[in-house]
C-alpha cells in the first residue's frame, strides 16, 4: 500500500476544522472492525476519524509504505511499473484507491473573477476566520456548500448561496437517520448494474447533509431561516458581474419531488416490513424561494468579498499512464474492473454499489474485487515485490 503522506492523509491535510463525517458512527464498518463506543448515532470529528483509520491500519497490520508519492504508473513487460519518489515497484496487479476527491473542481468562469475578490476551494478552507470580513458567495449547494454556507454565515459574514442541481434529504426521518433508511431498505447495497442510468447515478451530487451533535437537517430552508440568500446556479461572470441562472425554482422543485419519491420508497418499505417503533410518515415543506431571486451581483459594489467554490471534486490521474481513461479523463471500468488486465479501482461513487464511496462500502467492494484479482493471478495470491526499494522510508 503506497501512501503519499501518512495514513488517512487527505483527512489530515485537506479538510476544514469543523467537519464531521456525514455517516453515523455505527456505519463505519470495515471487515472485522467497527465502532465500539457509546455513541453509535453520533458523527466522528476529523481527528476521531483519523484515529479510527490509524487504529485499523495497526489492527490489520496493513503494509503501508508511508510518505511514498506515486509519480507514474506505466505498463511493463511483466505487468506494471510504479514510479514513486522513493524508488520503483513492479507488480502484476494494481488497485487504484486514490479516491474521487483529489482536487477541487472549479468552473471556467474563475478566470473572470476580479483580483480584489478572494477565492478559495473547500480544500483550502479551514474556518471563517481565514476570510475577510464581508459577504461571501458560496457556489454549490451539496454537502460541502451547505455546510460552509451555514458556518460562514454564522460567523457574521453574510452568505449568498448559488444553487444548481442538488439532493435534498432530512438528517432524521421518522426518528431514524437517513443513512439508517438507506441501509435498511437496501438502497445503499443497490448494485451498479441494477440502476437505469449508472452514468447519471455516478454523477449525482452528494446529499445535503451535515453531521452534528444535534443531528440537524441542513437543507435550503434551514439556510434561508438563518438569513442565507439563495440565488440560481452561477451561470457566468461578465464585466465584474456575477450572473445567476433563472432556473432556481425548477432546481428546487426537482429536488423536492425527488425527496418525495425517496420518502415514499421508505414509507412503503416500512409498511411492507412491519417496522415498528418509528414515527409516522411526514413530508418536509417545499423549498421556499423568494419571488424574484437576484440574477446578478455587481462585484464592484463590494457586497461580496470572497467566493468559495463548493462545486465538487475530481480525481487526479495525471500520474496514470495506462490507457484506461475516457475522453473526459475518467477511468473506464466495469464495477471497478478496468480494461487493463489486473488493474482495479476502488472508492469511486457508485463503483459497484451505491455505498461504494463510503467507508461502509469498502469491505464488500474489496471482497468482490480481490476475488477477481485472485482469479486473474490464477489463485496463487498476490505477487508484489519491491524492485530495488530505497531504504530511507523507515
Amino acid at each position, binding site marked *: 500500500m503506497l501512501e503519499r503522506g501518512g495514513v488517512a492523509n487527505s483527512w489530515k491535510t485537506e479538510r476544514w476544522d469543523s467537519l464531521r463525517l456525514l455517516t453515523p458512527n455505527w456505519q463505519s464498518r470495515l471487515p472485522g472492525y467497527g465502532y465500539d463506543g457509546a455513541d453509535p448515532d453520533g458523527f466522528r470529528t476529523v481527528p476521531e476519524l483519523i484515529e479510527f483509520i490509524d487504529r485499523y491500519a495497526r489492527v490489520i497490520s496493513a503494509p503501508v509504505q508511508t510518505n511514498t508519492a506515486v509519480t507514474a504508473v506505466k505498463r511493463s513487460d511483466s505487468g506494471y511499473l510504479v514510479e514513486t519518489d522513493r524508488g520503483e515497484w513492479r507488480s502484476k496487479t494494481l488497485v487504484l484507491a486514490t479516491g474521487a476527491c483529489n482536487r477541487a473542481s472549479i468552473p471556467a468562469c474563475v478566470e473572470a473573477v476580479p483580483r480584489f475578490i478572494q477565492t478559495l476551494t473547500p480544500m483550502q478552507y479551514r474556518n471563517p476566520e481565514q476570510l475577510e470580513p464581508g459577504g461571501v458567495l458560496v457556489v454549490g449547494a451539496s454537502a460541502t456548500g451547505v455546510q460552509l454556507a451555514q458556518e460562514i454565515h454564522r460567523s457574521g459574514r453574510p452568505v449568498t448561496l448559488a444553487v444548481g442541481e442538488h439532493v435534498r434529504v432530512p438528517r432524521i426521518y421518522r426518528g431514524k437517520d437517513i443513512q439508517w433508511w438507506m441501509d435498511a431498505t437496501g438502497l445503499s447495497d443497490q448494485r451498479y448494474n441494477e440502476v437505469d442510468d449508472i452514468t447519471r447515478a455516478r454523477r449525482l451530487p452528494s446529499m445535503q447533509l451535515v453531521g452534528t451533535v444535534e443531528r440537524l437537517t441542513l437543507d435550503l430552508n434551514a439556510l434561508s431561516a438563518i438569513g442565507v440568500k439563495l440565488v*440560481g446556479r452561477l*451561470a*457566468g461572470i*461578465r464585466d465584474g458581474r456575477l*450572473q445567476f*441562472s*433563472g*432556473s432556481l425554482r*425548477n432546481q428546487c*422543485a*426537482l429536488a423536492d*419531488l425527488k425527496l*418525495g*419519491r425517496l420518502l415514499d420508497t421508505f414509507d412503503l418499505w416500512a409498511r411492507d416490513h412491519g417496522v415498528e417503533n418509528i414515527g409516522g410518515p411526514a413530508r418536509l415543506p417545499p423549498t421556499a424561494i423568494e419571488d*424574484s431571486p437576484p440574477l446578478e451581483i455587481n462585484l464592484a459594489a463590494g457586497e461580496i468579498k470572497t467566493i468559495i467554490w463548493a462545486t465538487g471534486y475530481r480525481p487526479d490521474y495525471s500520474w496514470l499512464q495506462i490507457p484506461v481513461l475516457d*475522453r473526459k479523463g475518467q477511468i473506464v471500468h466495469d464495477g471497478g474492473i478496468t480494461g487493463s488486465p489486473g488493474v482495479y479501482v476502488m472508492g469511486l461513487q457508485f463503483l459497484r454499489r451505491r455505498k461504494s464511496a463510503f467507508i461502509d462500502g469498502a469491505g464488500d467492494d474489496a471482497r468482490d474485487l480481490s476475488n477477481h484479482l485472485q482469479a486473474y493471478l490464477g489463485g496463487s495470491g498476490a505477487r508484489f515485490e519491491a524492485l530495488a526499494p530505497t531504504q530511507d522510508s523507515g
Partner: protein
Amino acid sequence: MASSDIAVDNGVNVEALLGARKALTEAPEAAKFQWRASCKWINGTHSNSTVEGFFGLGTEQHHRKTFSFDADHPEIFASEDKGATPVELVLVGLASCLTAGIAAVAQNRGIQLRSVSATIEGAMDIQGILGIDSDVRNGFDGIKVKYQIDADATPAEIKALVAQSQKRSAVFDIVTNPTNVSVEVN
C-alpha cells in the same frame, strides 16, 4: 407509473431518441448542431423570417419545407400588426420547447398523456425599450408558465414531468442563462 403491458403512445419515438443518445455518446462530434434563421425587413417594424436548413450529424440538413414567420408590432405602437411581436415569438419558443419535452419525458416514463395545454406570460416594463429609465431592463421581468395536464399519472408524477422537461429544455436554458451574442454587419 403506467404498467408496461399497456401501450403508451404520445406520438414520440423514444427508441429513436434513446438510440440517438447512445450513438452520439460514442460519436460526440456528430452531436454538434447549428440552427439558423434568415430575416428580411419588409416595412416599418414588419419583418419576415424563414427557417429551412440546419447543420447536424456531421452534415447539412433540411426541414421538409421552408417555414415562414412574420413579426411586427401591434397598432398601439403605431405599427400594422402583421405578425406576432418578437417577444411573443420567444414565449412561443419556450412554451413549445417545454411542451415537446413533456411529451418525450412522458413517453420515456410510460405515462399516457390525454391533454397538455399551457399559457405563458412575460411581464415587461417598456420604459426599458423606450429608454425612459435606464434602471429598467429591456427584456422580461419574469416569465410565468401554467400547465394544464391530463395524464395517466399521479399529481407528483405530472409535476416531475414538467420539472424534468425544464431541466432538459434548450429554450429554458437560453432564457435563464446568459449567452454570448455577436452581431456583424456586411
